[in-house]
């Protein structure tokens, strides 16, 4: 019983960050129709930036955000404006190719600069534990959980009840009508891409403490993000968040109850099962 609770807690904690990763992708997808295959590599870029700042200035990853967040926002805006926008009107596969190219460039760039050996980014809270009954939780996971839920809530509120949020939804629902209302559609696309990548800077800081950094780790985050995105129904933001939690929990259950290799398969098996029976996403009809 304790084991089960432990797995559930761990899964929910880490799953919230998966949800955050996927929200970033969902935001980009809903506005620009782009599936960003370099998503996970931006997470690793964010983590390596934390590592570099720790090496240079001994900054805690949470503090590093003051630098990494603006950097990633700008990188996101530039990548959309100068790489994606020129091919955005072309075949959808062009953009897929492009983001795959960005993924490889990031991965190998990181390998060149930081080398292939694993790195660590320590944090002051890293070794702290939180006890809830018999369930032991690592402090960085608790921080990640609280921060992810807070950010997701903030994102929902912005989308639901601010002008900029309405403009984003308007571009998603009918870009032409939005343009006729004076919305600068391209600017909204650049901005949401930047925010989507900026969210990854935050996710990276939340994931960094205790995670061994490898240049190739991005792919795993991309895959997890895609799972949560599809499971959530692509544009249903609440669904995406729930899907992130489902992936996190099935990963944790798999690791505790099944052998190593089998455990790794569980999230994918759960994904396949849910998509088989609910192809429209985990929360029923998607909002698009």
């Amino acid at each position, binding site marked *: 019983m304790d084991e089960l609770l432990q797995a559930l807690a761990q899964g929910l904690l880490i799953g919230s960050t998966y949800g955050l990763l996927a929200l970033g992708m969902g935001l980009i997808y809903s506005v620009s129709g782009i599936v960003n295959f370099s998503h996970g590599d931006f997470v690793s870029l964010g983590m390596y930036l934390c590592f570099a700042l720790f090496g240079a200035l001994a900054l805690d990853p949470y503090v590093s955000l003051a630098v990494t967040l603006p950097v990633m926002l700008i990188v996101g805006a530039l990548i959309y404006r100068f790489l994606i926008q020129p091919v955005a009107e072309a075949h959808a596969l062009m953009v897929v190719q492009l983001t795959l190219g960005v993924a490889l460039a990031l991965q190998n760039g990181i390998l060149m600069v930081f080398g292939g050996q694993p790195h660590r980014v320590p944090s002051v809270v890293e070794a702290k534990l939180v006890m809830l009954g018999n369930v032991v939780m690592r402090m960085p996971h608790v921080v990640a959980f609280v921060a992810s839920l807070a950010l997701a809530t903030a994102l929902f509120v912005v989308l639901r009840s601010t*002008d900029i949020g*309405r*403009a984003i*939804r*308007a571009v998603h*629902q*009918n870009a*032409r*009508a*939005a*343009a*006729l*209302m*004076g*919305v*600068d559609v391209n600017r909204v696309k650049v901005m949401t891409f930047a925010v989507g990548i900026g969210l990854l800077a935050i996710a990276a800081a939340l994931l960094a403490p205790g995670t061994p950094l490898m240049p190739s780790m991005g792919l795993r985050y991309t895959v997890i993000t895609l799972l949560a995105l599809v499971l959530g129904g692509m544009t249903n933001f609440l669904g995406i968040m729930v899907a992130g939690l489902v992936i996190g929990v099935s990963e944790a259950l798999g690791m505790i109850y099944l052998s190593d290799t089998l455990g790794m398969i569980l999230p994918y098996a759960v994904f396949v099962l849910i998509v088989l029976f609910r192809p429209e996403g985990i929360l029923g009809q998607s*909002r*698009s």
Partner: protein
Amino acid sequence: MLRIEGVDAVYGPVKALSDANLQIGKGELVGLLGANNAGKSTLMNVLSGIVPTAAGRVFFEDEDITKASARRRVEMGIVQVPEGRLVFPQMSVRENLLMGGMNASARPKRAEGIARVCELFPRLAERLDQHAGTLSGGEQQMLAIGRGLVAGARLLMLDEPSLGLSPLFVKYIFEIIDKLHKDGLTILLVEQNLNLTLRFANRCYVLERGHIVVEGTADQVRDDPRTRSAYLGL
């Protein structure tokens, strides 16, 4: 108020509009007539700035806006109510109206604009929290017009407002257009419905394959044989 001189518009290799000259005076209701694909919507999109002007110039209140962005034009009060309404289906009626008032010059007056639209269209006032996608075609047309009014339209450009509506709604929408016109709004009306347009418009232009072939008062346009041929594609 609005004047275009020698305007061309192209879609790739296709010239959708050639050497178009047109004028709209303040307070006028001007009709733009023509068969399908005659270039009516293109002309309207050129005025809105979402189709670039390939040649010629566009003036609004004597300011050259040929190169102005779509957003700038909305801020100046050149507002299009597009064909097929294009409301935001998953937003409430209220949010659609708020979207209308997104532009910088309309935003401060948004609440008054919405109140005015509610007065003009009581049916919308009853449905402010309903999703726009669940409205009937006629109600969506009201919403699209309302959205344009909240946007602060000084030149309201209506693209086929009667399209797909029941005769009763067509009559109602035209009464509203007439009322807006009588209240002093300048209107450019694109329509296939020749008779209705000729009844309400001060002046009309007839487009045929990208060229303006007839222009004049409603009576002149009605009596011009080229109008009929432009419509029948003869």
